[in-house]
Each structure stands twice: as structure tokens, then as C-alpha cells.
């Protein structure tokens, strides 16, 4: 297995005054090029912290992240993030939001006209070209998340990091967007790492599901391969034995072996 993205013995300890909390303990994971990996766990287990470490927005206390065998410890467009709450800049239009990243990443390699075309190409990929001149406040939550995905894709990241990208959406919009992301992954072959707490979403989209134990000191409890052929169809999978078995495994992990206990 060739390691494209490698998480190497990552520990994360938060220190506030004299109190220290160990959030993540000895996280090791290798991800291949083109793979779709989900990290699932109860809230508060440090999934988002892990994603922030990979994105470079937080630093690991010990251990590190290797991307194509080079250590990365600061944020960059090679690890573009789709944020949970879209994080579009409200004073820019849809087009300008995507353009912001494109202008930085392709400042030298693309001409002005090429960059313009590239922005529109990416907006087309997520079917948002029609809203290019709208501001984020004028479009729906699902549309904002589409633009967030376009902004990340437009930076041509080596790894696309999705931080609970569908968490804030209603069920129907979520399903629609999941299908879009699956189609994009199929078409572009991106390497994707997604944080989620939705079991169905994890099984439907991923090649592998990384299940995390509860914090503090969260570890990787189990890694499950999802041997379903692509392209996957939501409706057909509903009765597929493999799908149901995978779903069962994740549910057992989350609700039997690592039940979420509210902090007493």
C-alpha cells in the first residue's frame, strides 16, 4: 500500500493553565491516492481536532502529517477544507469566493482568463454557475455548501478535507449533496478525508471507515473496509447485504462497544 497521506503517531494535548487534556492518542493512519476515507465517532472525540491537524490549522503535540512523504505542519491549498458551516465570506459573491483561492493558487501558472474559466468550470461541477453573482446570504444552505466544495476543488488539492460537510443540512438536501460528492469523486479521483457522525453517510461514501473511540485520549478503535463497487446507488444499497453488514459493524462499534457517555 502506497502511503499518500500518512498520519504518524499523532498525539494532541490541550493545556489550559495547569490542567492538561489529552485529546488524541497515538493516531496512525495511511491513506492511498484516490481513496475516500471517513472518520466517524461520537461528538467530542476529537475528530475535528484531527482534521484541523491535517489541515495545519492546529499543530500536533507529538507526531506529524506526511503528504507524499513530506511533512506538512502549516495550512495550505494542497489540503483544502470544506468547513462544516460553509465559511463563505458574506461580502463576496459566489464567484468571488471561489476566485479568492484560485487567484492565490494559480497566480503564476494561469492567466487571468484561464483563472476566470477555471472558477466557472468548478462552479459548473457543483451546478452553481447560475448563482455566480449572488451573495451567500441569498442562496440556500445546500447551495452554500456546494460553493464551499467548489472553492476547495478549485484549489486542486492533493487531499480534500471535509469537516462534517452535510451536518447542517436537512435530510433531502444532504442526500442530494452526498450523491454530488460521490459523482465528483468518481469523475476527478480526488483523495478525500471526511469527518462525519452519520453512519449511513460513512458507509455510502467511503472506501474505508475509521472509527474512533471516545475521548479523552481518543484512539482509532477500528478501521472497516467497505467493499462495495462504485458507482454506488443509494436505493440499490438499501437492501444490499454487504452494505447492511458494514452498517451493522459501525453501529455496533458506536453504540455497543464505545457508547457515548455524557460527562458526569
Amino acid at each position, binding site marked *: 500500500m502506497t502511503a499518500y497521506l500518512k498520519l504518524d503517531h499523532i498525539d494532541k494535548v490541550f493545556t489550559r493553565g495547569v490542567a492538561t487534556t489529552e485529546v488524541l492518542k497515538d493516531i496512525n493512519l495511511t491513506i492511498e491516492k484516490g481513496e475516500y476515507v471517513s472518520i466517524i465517532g461520537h461528538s467530542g472525540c476529537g475528530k475535528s481536532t484531527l482534521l484541523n491537524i491535517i489541515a495545519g490549522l492546529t499543530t500536533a503535540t507529538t507526531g506529524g502529517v506526511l503528504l507524499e512523504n513530506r511533512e506538512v505542519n502549516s495550512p*495550505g*491549498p494542497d489540503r483544502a*477544507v470544506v*468547513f462544516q458551516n460553509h*465559511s463563505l465570506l*458574506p*461580502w463576496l459573491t459566489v464567484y468571488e469566493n471561489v476566485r*479568492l483561492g484560485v487567484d492565490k493558487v494559480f497566480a503564476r501558472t494561469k492567466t487571468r482568463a484561464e483563472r476566470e474559466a477555471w472558477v466557472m468550470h468548478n462552479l459548473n461541477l457543483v451546478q452553481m454557475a447560475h448563482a455566480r453573482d449572488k451573495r451567500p*446570504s441569498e442562496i440556500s444552505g445546500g447551495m452554500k455548501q456546494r460553493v464551499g466544495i467548489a472553492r476547495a476543488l478549485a*484549489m486542486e488539492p492533493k487531499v480534500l478535507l471535509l469537516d462534517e460537510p452535510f451536518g447542517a443540512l436537512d435530510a433531502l438536501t444532504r442526500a442530494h449533496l452526498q450523491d454530488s460528492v460521490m459523482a465528483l469523486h468518481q469523475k476527478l479521483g480526488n483523495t478525500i478525508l471526511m469527518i462525519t457522525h452519520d453512519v449511513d453517510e460513512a458507509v455510502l461514501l467511503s472506501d474505508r471507515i475509521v472509527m474512533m473511540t471516545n475521548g479523552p485520549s481518543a484512539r482509532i478503535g477500528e478501521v472497516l473496509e467497505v467493499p462495495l463497487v462504485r458507482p454506488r446507488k443509494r436505493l440499490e444499497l438499501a437492501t444490499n447485504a454487504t452494505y447492511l453488514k458494514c452498517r451493522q459493524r459501525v453501529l455496533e462499534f458506536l453504540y455497543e462497544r464505545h457508547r457515548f457517555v455524557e460527562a458526569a
Partner: protein
Amino acid sequence: MNMPATKMDIETAAPVSAAAPVVAMTPKRPPRSEAYARMAKETAVRVIPPIVVIALLMLVWELVCRRAGSALPPPSKVFKDTKELIVDPFFDHGGIDKGLFWHLSASLQRVAFGYSLSAIAGIALGVLVGQSVWAMRGLDPLFQVLRTIPPLAWLPLSLAAFRDGQPSAIFVIFITSIWPIIINTAVGIRNIPQDYRNVAAVVQLNPLEFFAKIMIPAAAPYIFTGLRIGIGLSWLAIIAAEMLIGGVGIGFFIWDAWNSSHISEIILALFYVGIIGFVLDRMIAGLGKIVTRGTAQG
């Protein structure tokens, strides 16, 4: 809890409603003329109360000051005395004997100059204090003390430093209006959501791009709050400062009118000062509305 109460209401209300006469329903789609009538009504609701209040106040003023030997003139006398100044605000007889337009424009020029300086310096310092923890620790206590110093207390010191009325007046405006601009800008910068900072980090904006593309637009609503308080304070300060430094300006016009016992002219000048202060405030508010159009959270 609600259920029994509503039930009782219905029971007690039933016999009453049965006895009540049938009321004709209003048509579903009112004709256009009715829409206009409603619009006119809404305008009237806003315009009539202040007009009534002003008319009543004028009446009281007139009645109180009409008596012989009254210290202040009634509105009718104010109008009669100052008719010339109202009709011709543009005359210029040399020295400080000018029309009100020239006095007001001299004051406004000082405000424009001092306020522009304080807007630039205030935003720059506010960004520094908002962005850097050490700058805040070092400067904030200083700002908190300096901002409580009354505007006119600065005037003797600035006269000593500049040895001239004009720059001193501008300095007083500057030092009066800069504090709310600094403090509000700093709060705005400190309140930039972490999300926007993350986006900037992933896109790898350099500090200059971050300043222009994230910081200023994100903090704009706060900055404009500071600017609006600032313009109000500078207009307050200029009138007082001009009374002391003399020369052409609405502040000294008022002081001069007092010395010559032209009480009606003072009242007219106060009217203009109020109107211009109001217009300045509206201008900054309007500018803020245009600039921060997109920054409302979406």
C-alpha cells in the same frame, strides 16, 4: 395548562358571539386607491407627530417669551431679527463679518480635516490593538485614560504646541474623535470569526491581503459604529474649540453674537448646528450601510 383556559373562554364567549350582529367581510383584494391611501396614512403616522410636537413647543415658547422684559426672544422675534442672515447666507464684508454659509463651511472644513486624520489613524491603531495581544496590553490602559479627557482640556496644550488657532482646533477634533474609532475597530478585529481566519490560512493569504480582503470587510460594521460616534464628537468639539480660538467659524459666530447681545442670532446658529450635526451623522450611517451591505451574516 392552556387547554382548560381556552375551553372556558369559548364557553363563556359562545353566547355573546351568538348575539353579536353579523359583520360584513372586507373584500379580499383592496383596490389600488386603497393601497395609496394606506401608504399616505403610514407616512402621516410618521410625519404628523413630530410636526404637532414642534408646533406645540413653538407655541409654548412664543407664549412664555412674549411678555415684556423676557430674557429670551420668542420665535417670531427670532425670525424677524435674523431674516437677513437666513435670506442671504453668502455675504462677505471682510474679517469675521460673513454670512452663515462661510462660518459653517469654515467649521466643516476643520472637521473634515481633523476627522479624516482621526479616521485613518484610528482605524490603523484599532487594527494594531485588535490584532496584537501585546499592543493591546501596552496601549489599551493608555487609551482608556486618555479618552476620558474632555476635548477642551486639550486646547491650551495644543495652542502651546502649535502656536496657532487653526491646527489647534484640528488637533482637538482629532483627539476627541479618535478614541471611539480605535476602540470599535479593535473590537471588530477581535470579533472576526475563526472561520474566516481559517479560510485565509488555507488559501494562504499574506498579511496585506488578509488585511484588505478579510479584516476590513469583516470588521466594517464595527468600524462604522466608531466612525459614527466619532463624527458626532468632532462636531461637538469644534463648536467649543472655535469659541475659544476665534476667527471664522460657527462656534465663534455664536460667541460673538453673545458678546453683542444678538440672542436671536445665537438661536438661529444653534438651529443650523443641530441640522448639520444630524446630516453628518446620517451621512456616515448611510456610507456605512452602503459599504457593509454584504457583511450581514448569511
